[in-house]
């Protein structure tokens, strides 16, 4: 199933440098575990006894979310990451963003990838305006660069008069739009989009899909986690299917989506 990616990677050796693709992200046998404070007993497992006082109460539980994933992403690729809820897609993306260190394995990248997720709050008690400035600075822009881009971010997010109000007064869709607009204002070498497109309305979804294609054209690499197969097919050429923390399939988006849909 990984033959396709091997073909495309090795083919250039015969021809010339214009076909050689530069890898932007290499993920090599990555395992990710994270710790959670679990209250109560495990839902299943042989050690479960109803009336015995369980020693499991309030123990630190390790979740093995990603279990040995390897792949290489190249310049100009848009890669859809699909799989059922809890399969480890978002965890994998956070590791690629450098936010969650792998327990085992390595990740290399040519720049620090930027993660764009729905759950990520910015600073909710501050206005949209302050958040744009803060977000831009956090992404590494200088104050002048932020000022330059400010208006286009506001236009892209399309939140009108709410720009002066604290972000906690925004609807979920407005928050997601603003976050996307801020992150998309910078040309990222590697952009990781986690479900962000699902939140906005139709018009915004279209704008953001356009922006993703544009970023891809600027020789970046875009990862898109989505449950919307149509947006994966529209924006991505390649797809990864993650199943229970393992890479089940890696290949052209159309093939992977077809196989995934057949399995559900």
């Amino acid at each position, binding site marked *: 199933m990984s033959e396709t990616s091997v073909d495309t990677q090795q083919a250039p050796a015969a021809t010339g440098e214009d076909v050689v693709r530069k890898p932007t992200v290499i993920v090599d046998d990555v395992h990710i575990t994270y710790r959670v404070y679990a209250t109560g007993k495990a839902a299943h497992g042989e050690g479960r006894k109803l009336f015995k006082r369980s020693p499991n109460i309030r123990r630190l539980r390790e979740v093995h979310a990603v279990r040995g994933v390897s792949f290489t992403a190249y310049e100009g690729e848009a890669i859809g990451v699909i799989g059922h809820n809890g399969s480890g897609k978002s965890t994998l993306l956070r590791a690629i963003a450098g936010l969650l260190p792998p327990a085992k394995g390595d990740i290399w990248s040519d720049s620090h990838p930027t993660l764009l997720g729905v759950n990520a*709050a910015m600073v909710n008690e*501050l206005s949209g305006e302050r958040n744009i400035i803060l977000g831009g600075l*956090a992404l590494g822009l200088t104050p002048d660069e932020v000022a330059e881009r400010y208006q286009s971010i506001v236009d892209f997010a399309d939140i009108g008069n709410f720009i002066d109000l*604290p972000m906690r007064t925004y609807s979920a869709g407005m928050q997601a739009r603003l976050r996307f607009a801020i992150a998309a204002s910078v040309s990222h070498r590697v952009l990781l989009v986690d479900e962000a497109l699902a939140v906005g309305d139709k018009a915004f979804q279209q704008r953001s899909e356009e922006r993703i294609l544009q970023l891809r054209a600027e020789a970046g690499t875009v990862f898109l986690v989505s449950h919307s197969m149509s947006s994966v097919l529209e924006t991505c050429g390649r797809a990864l299917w993650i199943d229970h923390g393992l890479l089940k399939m890696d290949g052209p988006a159309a093939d992977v989506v077809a196989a995934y849909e057949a399995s559900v």
Partner: protein
Amino acid sequence: MTTAPPDSPTAQETARQWGLSHLGGRPPLRAYLTELWQRRHFALELARSRFRAKNEADRLGVGWIVLGPLINAAVYGVVFGVVLVSSARPDSYVPFLITGVFLFQFFAGSLADGARSIIANRGLVTTLHFPRAVLPFSVVYQQLLNQLWMVLALLLLVTTSGYFPTVNWLLVAPTLALMTLFNLGVAFVAARLTIHLRDIAQLIPFVTRMFFYLSGVFVSMPALLHGRPGWALQVAEANPIYNYITLMRVSLLGEKAVFAVPGHPDQFFPYDPVKTWLLAVAWGVGMLVVGFLFFWRAEDEYGRE
């Protein structure tokens, strides 16, 4: 053509060949400092925005920054100046007490907010990559902004109490600067400890309260410990918070007002300015270096959970 994952045997070589850098883990110290410097605008803006947001909500705004500690000082003034009158109460009590309370607030605020700096910014930490040291730094900077307002009020209050500006007032600046370094170190340590053990956050109020009583905020330490073994005062004087409060008092009120024996305005406790300043520098620089290194060593753990 193989069916094995395309790069697994040579992933590292491929990465090196294309100049890709390894992600995750703790960056080298020098790179970390460079990155921190690049995000300085972010740290300052975060502090300024929070400062503004916090004060816009209240009608009195910035006024509360000064009014809060002032009311606090008034309460202590009543308790320790009227109800529980101590023989260790200096004669010029009001400016003595207000200086102590205001400066203590700088420490207490940095400790409490520093401990929460990573947890309170989860949204930022889980989405954006930036050196996490930005967060404790920004918290202490916000506290410094508060403190500058307080110092302004302090200068006014001290003047109205009859202590007029002298050249020594210039020493307020280095005192605040050194205390800021110290508080930064404290915030770094507290931020990391809280990540490892949430329960630490519950203990902060007690730590603060303990230092409040040990730092001579409302009492003259030499007078309080008069007649005790000599080491007791030496231990008390080694306390950095007492040290900074003392420097601030001496700068504003003069050595005589601070170290006069209560009830005997012509007798004075000994005061060694050189030793006090050296200690202030050692605590400030030492705490910052230790705190920063301690914080940096766990850089890759702040995004977990």
